[in-house]
């Protein structure tokens, strides 16, 4: 199935220069150190790690917000190196991103219709009536109503906003969707709805997801493959079963041990330990 790899990343590094001050020498910080990965079409790769481990930097490089310092990224056969070649419209259409905080990622002065049409306005020559039709279709697809078209973001709840952000991301019919902690700002029941929506869209549109998260229970539910990052390095990479059933690296084990257990057995164990 090697020909069905949609995202191919080889040995990618990202280094940031830290400016020196009067008494401080300029230095360098390597946020991502030699990451390699393959994602097959229609599957989900989950990237796990704590804050500062470089998972969002990786997302920024995949979505062409930031350039890699070295290494190669290939999306659907198209090499990506924006510091050398810039970004073409074709590249833009391949990949889109959904951010963590749906309150911050929507412009409060833009109506929802405008939010959804903007990617088309910028990247295609579509006439406005067609754009409108597409936006209305998309609203329906993510479980919103046509009358939401003319409303402003503040009129929506967090879960609805995240639906809008997802709708915006798939307006361009991308091949790859990068989801940067898409449910961590949401309530449990809303989280379930959004995860269901993502699963439906994946089936329907054949989307490939790179799902960034720190919540292992969500990862276990949604991922095909799991990658664990720690201080910019990949410490564990494998299928969901491999990683969850037989974690190799100490950090992965620590991570699993730290995840709260909500099953009856663990509660019994804790209460017994407390009584003793």
């Amino acid at each position, binding site marked *: 199935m090697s020909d069905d790899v949609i995202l191919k990343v080889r040995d990618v590094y990202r280094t940031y220069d830290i400016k020196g001050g009067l008494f401080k020498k300029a230095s360098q910080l390597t946020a991502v150190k030699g990451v390699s990965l393959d994602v097959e079409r229609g599957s989900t790769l989950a990237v796990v790690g704590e804050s500062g481990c470089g998972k969002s930097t990786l997302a920024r490089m995949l979505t062409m917000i930031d350039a890699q310092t070295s290494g190669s990224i290939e999306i659907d056969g198209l090499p990506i190196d924006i510091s050398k070649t810039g970004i073409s419209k074709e590249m833009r259409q391949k990949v889109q991103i959904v951010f963590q905080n749906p309150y911050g990622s929507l412009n409060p002065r833009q109506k929802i219709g405008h939010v959804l049409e903007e990617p088309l306005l910028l990247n295609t020559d579509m006439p406005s009536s067609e754009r409108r039709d597409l936006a209305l279709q998309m609203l329906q697809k993510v479980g919103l109503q046509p009358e939401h078209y003319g409303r402003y973001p503040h009129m929506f709840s967090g879960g609805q906003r995240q639906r809008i952000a997802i709708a915006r991301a798939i307006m361009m019919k991308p091949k790859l969707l990068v989801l940067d902690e898409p449910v961590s700002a949401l309530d449990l029941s809303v*989280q*379930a709805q959004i*995860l269901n929506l993502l699963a439906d869209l994946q089936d329907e549109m054949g989307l490939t997801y790179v799902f960034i998260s*720190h919540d292992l229970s969500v990862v276990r539910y949604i991922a095909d493959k799991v990658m664990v990052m720690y201080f910019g390095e990949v410490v564990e990479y494998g299928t969901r079963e491999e990683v969850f059933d037989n974690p190799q690296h100490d950090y992965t084990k620590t*991570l699993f041990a730290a995840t709260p257990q909500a*099953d009856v057995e663990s509660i019994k164990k804790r209460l017994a330990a407390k009584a003793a």
Partner: protein
Amino acid sequence: MSLLEIRNLKVEFDTAKGPFKALDGVDYKVDAGEVLSIVGESGSGKSVAMLATMGLLPDSATITADKMEFEGLDLRTLSAKEKRKVIGRDISMIFQEPIASLNPCFTVGFQLSETLKAHTELKGKQIKDRVIELLTSVGIPDPAGRLNAFPHQMSGGQCQRVMIAMAIACSPKLLIADEPTTALDVTIQKQILDLLVKLQQDSGMGLIMITHDMGVVAETADRVIVQYKGRKMEEADVLSLFENPQNPYTKALLSALPENATGDRLPTVSDFAEAGGF
């Protein structure tokens, strides 16, 4: 006698569109040495209840209760001055955003000593010693060296430890933790929860843990109150709640946990709302 007993608590906010009921007749009871967890989604009134108890709600809120007693002291009739003596000393609170709860302009040592100056008789060197002792007890490495650190020089987990140190500075009888680990990484969350539970067991204080995370509830609570839209849905000890939830909303919440997923789809609360009628 319970440590804190509240009966029929109602909170209403005046809004431009008329009064909004945030909390509609909920009872709370906490004993010394007990961990009570209040769980619910945003808008369920879980924070509002505790803010009302602490007297931290804005003037637009109307608070009524049939009973609101802390150690037999009626919190409803207490003057602001008398209340200040209790709040911060006998009842203290930790908030969700550790970095935002600390004042960025003052050092950690200074902010910790403020609490001690306000509520204890300690002076000068004694205060400094107590601050170092507190920082040690919450597990800050090199506590004497960190006294002059500003909040921005510490990580989120460390700031939360400082907040906890501040909250337990006067050995409170009741500690209210409002989503204390929501903004933190899982590994740090584990450390902070372990620390809170350890402090609670060592000192025998009552602990109210407000959270939306069923995992946190399972790891810390003795007794649980489940709230939804300002009403109490269910109250049970932690084991029976997870083993045998009674209320349809609790069942919905538990089955929406991704780790309990059985099929391809996660059941959502709205699936249950139609059947359960809440």
